[in-house]
């Protein structure tokens, strides 16, 4: 038995955290097995709650929240009524972040550039702003009725990603890592790639909360050291490093022989792994070795820091057994000039995401890799930016909208070429099949073979889980 060192946290701390009687320990309770069977092995090695459809996740979070109405959820009626004052209840009942007086409706422009097209065999409607994604529509499974409880960025990001609007809870990637571990001895189970600034929720968006910190998302950076402190001190070569690491190992072995604390054995292993990471991580991050065809497909340029590069890195990470890769892309918060800014952002992500789907498909990885497109909320069908005379300003935008927004998944056991749920004719509320954030998270865990009600961690005297006491798996999106 050679447990993944990334999961072998300090055993003392582990035992401390998981409780006195193992009957209540996380893995054992997950398993509903007798306490004696419990080890510090992740669920994946012990057997999941049910057969998983997805073995890994690439989770793309569009920070700031894209205008789903202009990308995925076309509303002809809204387009028709553009410029009309919105119905009273849209304004009276809604907590709006920025709009302070009753706004006008704002439809997608009647312009070929913004037109929607029925795509593929499924006929799913996708905006012309995303021509490449139009080409893989038959792989995508849309939820048009996701809704949340928070309408400010940071709390909504935490709510979407940790199931709780304030600080302190583990993120979905940490829960997945806690449940499944990493398949790669040399890489963490949960890796984060960021373009633009870090989002408002900060590290909490990929933090491990009260779970052991070993499950927190490790950011791989495109500038400087890909993992902080990966590089040797100035002037010290990898070969020279070996000599020092060997000396440390030998000296720690002396201590282990003397004191007998298994913790020292773990530390010796971790130093070995650190040394290996110094080779494996740069190798992973170096996309130069990818063929030209792949670079053209993704639109990647080696050495650059770009969303496209991160999509390609995501594939390289999951290929190497990383369980959960999370991409954050900043710059979608279009309160003003949405019809100028959205096309620019759409162009940045359209080609690489479509390439990622195709690339995974070609490699046979799409069927057990789940791709997720999500944001902290959607955007209003009402215009933000109404002039004094009541007309809509030419550079209008959309405010934060928590009542309904569109997200999609692909691969990993989701129903391809499918649309679940329906919003009302103005795209404000839900007409059919609402999906709450907790339902969405329950569904992701379900696809990974985990029952969201049974993936728990004991803290402060009670069992915590990602979905609090809520969440229903959305059966309608399962293949």
């Amino acid at each position, binding site marked *: *038995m050679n447990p993944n060192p*990334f999961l072998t*946290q*300090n055993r*003392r*701390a582990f*035992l*401390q*955290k998981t409780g006195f009687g*193992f009957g*209540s320990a996380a893995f054992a309770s997950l398993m509903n097995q007798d*306490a004696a069977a*419990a080890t*510090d092995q992740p669920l994946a090695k012990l057997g999941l709650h049910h057969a998983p459809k997805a073995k890994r996740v690439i989770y793309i979070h569009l920070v700031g929240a894209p205008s789903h109405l202009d990308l995925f959820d076309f509303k002809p009626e809204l387009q028709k009524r553009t410029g009309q004052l919105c119905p009273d209840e849209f304004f009276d009942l809604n907590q709006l972040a*920025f709009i302070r007086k009753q706004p006008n409706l704002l439809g997608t422009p009647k312009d070929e550039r913004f037109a929607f097209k029925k795509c593929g065999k499924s006929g799913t409607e996708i905006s012309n702003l995303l021509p490449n994604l139009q080409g893989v529509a038959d792989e995508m499974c849309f939820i048009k009725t996701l809704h949340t409880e928070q*309408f400010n*960025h*940071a709390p909504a990001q935490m709510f979407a990603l940790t199931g709780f609007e*304030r*600080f302190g809870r583990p993120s979905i990637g940490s829960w997945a890592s806690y449940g499944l571990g990493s398949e790669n001895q040399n890489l963490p189970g949960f890796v984060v790639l960021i373009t633009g*600034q*870090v989002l*408002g929720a*900060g*590290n*909490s968006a990929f*933090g491990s909360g009260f779970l*052991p*910190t*070993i499950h927190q998302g490790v950011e791989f950076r495109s500038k400087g050291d890909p*993992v*902080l*402190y990966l590089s040797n*001190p*100035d*002037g010290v070569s990898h070969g*020279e*490093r070996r*000599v020092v690491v060997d000396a*440390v190992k030998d*000296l*720690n072995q*002396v*201590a*282990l022989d003397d*004191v007998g*604390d*298994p*913790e020292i054995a773990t530390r010796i292993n*971790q*130093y070995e*792994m*650190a*040394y290996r*990471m110094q080779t494996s991580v740069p190798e992973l991050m170096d996309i130069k070795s990818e063929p030209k065809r792949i670079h053209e497909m993704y639109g990647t340029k080696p050495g650059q820091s770009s969303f496209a590069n991160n999509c390609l890195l995501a594939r390289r990470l999951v290929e190497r057994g990383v369980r959960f890769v999370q991409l954050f892309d900043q710059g979608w918060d279009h309160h003003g000039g949405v019809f100028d800014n959205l096309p620019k952002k759409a162009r940045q992500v359209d080609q690489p995401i479509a390439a990622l789907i195709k690339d995974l498909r070609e490699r046979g990885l799409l069927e057990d890799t789940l791709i997720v497109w999500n944001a902290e909320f959607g955007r209003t069908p009402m215009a933000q930016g109404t002039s004094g005379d009541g007309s809509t300003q030419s550079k209008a935008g959309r405010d934060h909208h928590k009542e309904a927004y569109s997200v999609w998944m692909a691969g990993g056991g989701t129903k391809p070429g499918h649309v679940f749920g329906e919003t009302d004719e103005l795209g404000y509320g839900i007409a059919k099949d609402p999906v709450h954030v907790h339902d969405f998270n329950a569904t992701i865990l379900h696809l990974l073979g985990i*029952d969201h009600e049974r993936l728990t961690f004991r*803290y*402060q*005297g*009670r069992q915590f889980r990602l979905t609090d006491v809520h969440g229903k798996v959305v059966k309608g999106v399962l293949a």
Partner: protein
Amino acid sequence: MLIRRVIASLLILPWMALQAEGDAPDFNREIRPILAENCFHCHGPDEKSREGGLRLDTFKGATEGGEFADPVVPGKPDESELIARIYSKDPEELMPPPDAKRTLTEKEKKLLERWIASGAKYEEHWAWVSPVRASVPGNKPVDTFILRRLEQEGLKFSKPATSGNLLRRLSLDLIGLPPSPDDFERFSNGGDYEAEVDRLLASPRFGERWARHWLDLARYADSNGFQADQLRPSWAYRDWVIDALNSNMPYDQFTIEQLAGDLLPKSDLRQKIATGFHRTVTCNVEAGVSPEGNRMNQVFDRVNTTATVWLGVTLECAQCHDHKFDPFTMKDYYSLFAYFNNTPIEVQPPSNKNDVSHDFVGPYLDLPLSPEQQRKADQLDEMIADLTREREKLNEGSESEFVAWQESALASLTSQPKWQAMKVTAFQSSGGDEHRVLKNGSVLLTGKVPDTATYTVEVETELRDITGFRLETLPHPDLPGKGPGRGDAVRPNFVLHEFRAALKEGGKERPIALQKAEADFSQKNWGVAGAIDGKAKTGWAISPQFGRPHQATFELVEPILNASGSKFVFQLLQNFGKGRVIGNVRISAISDPSGAGSLPPGIVAILKKSEGKRNAKQVENLRSHFLNSDPKLVRLEAQLARLKKERSDLKVDQTLVMVELEKPRKTHILKRGNFLAPDVEVTPGTPTRLPKLENSSNRLDLAKWLVRRDNPLTARVAVNRWWAELFGNGIVATLEDFGTQSEPPTHPELLDWLAVELMESGWDMKHVLKTIVMSQTYGQSSRLTPELLEKDPRNLLFARAPRFRMDAERLRDNALTISGLLSTKMHGKPIMPYQPNGLWRQTGRNEPKWVEQKDENRWRRGIYIVYRRAAPYPSMVNFDAPDRSSCTVQRPRTNTPIQALTMLNDPAYVEMALALADRILTESKAPNERVNYAFGLTLGRSATPREMKIIEELVRSRGEYYRGNQNKLNAVLKSPKFFYNPKHENKIELATWFQVANALLNLDEVMTRN
């Protein structure tokens, strides 16, 4: 396989074994956990979710039974419905129901049966009952309780730790730093242990070490958290904690001042600073946030943190519903909430509309100037006084010159030269508009209004010896709103970004330098100087004085001394957009070598008045105009202005504090915790299950109640945390939870003894710590024998001392001390040592910036490093430091490859390795003693033969390498990341020992408190 065996053995620890069949099970230890875990969710204290009217958390409820006849019949399991249900094969009948996804093990079912058979006795949860001191024989209470239990399990104390090991442990535990070589020397030569304990408890380093522990609880950080995560001043509170711990402030006072220092009668400055404890909460200033929603979240945090820190209970559940397991209701929760509901709102929508964040408006307290600031202030005040005197002297001496100047200026006025309009010979506008030259010599622009335009005006004049130009912008009836701009009739403004002049000579254009731009009127922030500063963004505009003529004059740096006429080319750049261009323009020239003509119109007007008719203000203006032409005075004035600014920049520092509103807010129970859904009103009060607090109204009452002698929790919770700091485990393992779901104490009598001792010693923290560290239990060896690993892998019985990896701050402080770099400078603004570039830039906005300190500040203790929630100091995060966004009772303790990378490669630690190498080489001259010297510094012992051999081999191989590769020396020793400048001159030795020191700092034993 080791792991599996260890864990399996844990589950059947002999001392945990159940009593023989037939004995009554222990309710608190064996029965309540089963009921709590499986039944209370639907049959517990929460009335709203109670099923069938049955509650099983009280004897009354279980025996009376709601809708059920006989859920529990004491003594008769066969007649008890509960037993029938847990064994039922019918899914409709089975308890817990299948959809609850909880199942009882056979063992648990048997236990419940035996419990009912033995009379179904309920006992109050131990933690709700006040602690009573058990009598102990002898004067070693800690050892007595520990040993009693060890003997029950057939174990005994381990042998004592070696003296070096013990002193290192004690020092790292009490002050967070390792002993110095002198300390080791003194102690190993028969030093007195108690004297060492007293020395360390009295050290100012003590407060810095224990503040780390407290500040995790207080979720202290230097930033707001959330979106922009801007810095805010709270460090005075951090310093207050350090000082309070150093002065051994009694824990009851420590509690009261932090929770309610502002409400104490005649509270002093320090007591107000202490209330920073509850101003450390996160604050969302994200645009669009609801200020009231933000306030509510902050109050929730204050309630939850208070409950966790003092009561050791998790109240959070009762925010939305009655607690499922513990006897706390929503009413209890919001009654506690009411104490904290009376502080002002902390964010409001931005005062400046262009701001992307809300304003942070919570109460600040001004601090007095620090001694350092005070010294600086005194110095500045003195310099300002000196310069002021000097200026006065100059002014006095110049009185006669002033009179003379007035006379000559007045004389020149009478013969003042006149501006002469120049003849326009060509005009071109890049905007493509049309123009015509008017009789008055001006150019009127007509036709299409361009967004932006550059006018090129060619003129000629017969004037000689030209010293200045004048640009006039004139109104005209054809212009919208009469002009002078062309853009729109309401705001006919213009923006002249640049005014350029050139002399045309023999077909060439020679640029003319202009200075002293003055205008009759300039719009705010659009001064005319901006038109000749060469900057594209500045310029001259005239809003709101539309519809009237304006003029700007420019002096030539070098007058054009010519015999006959000249030709000039002017360029007027107007790039603002929206037609903010001049509609009617005229350019004139002047010849005025005396300079009188360049007097501003205001000064001219004063000069023209007779002396008697000038008022005081006018005389002053005249004098200052005169003085400003004296270069010496101008220099003096500039110097004075600079000093005055520096003095006014020496602002007092501020810190965040609690302030109570004069009129308390009403508090309501909030449905589902939603502040938009208030339910019934409640008044301040403490949880009903705990000792009653009569007639309380504010935080001060609450704080005093927390430290009342009959409060069963506060003292226990505190001593348990301190115990865990010293032993790695609490006596109650769940430090953050003493509720019914918590782990029972391993040594309940010891816990209570310590709790009572704390209270009866006058809440003396240092006394309790001393009592613990003076024990034999504390002084044992930490060696792990196979027997101990088998019998007690978690060290719950304390048959050995624990060994564990130190927390992030202690790792840093330890390495800094060993390397000799540590700065013991205390207090003040947070520090910024080395961290990799760009981490903060990514976090949001351009401010704040990480400015690495290249002075002793970079080597100060970890407690002083700036704590920014979105991006805490990364090397500490890697060692499990929290982001301080919420209360952390116990940091996890992981062992990861990222930690190995940090210790090996973080340039901050690498610099320490360099300094350590230098220290070894300079302090230990004899090469054959260096290895032992190095071990003495890092571990307080000499190397074992095996260790010696490994290090000697490393020294040999590295020495050989660097002797053969001397070209590599500078790359290693002269890294730009180093600020430390080594003293040892032999570079080969230095590089060799640098590698050795790097290895030493990475030893498990160096990172471990053992």
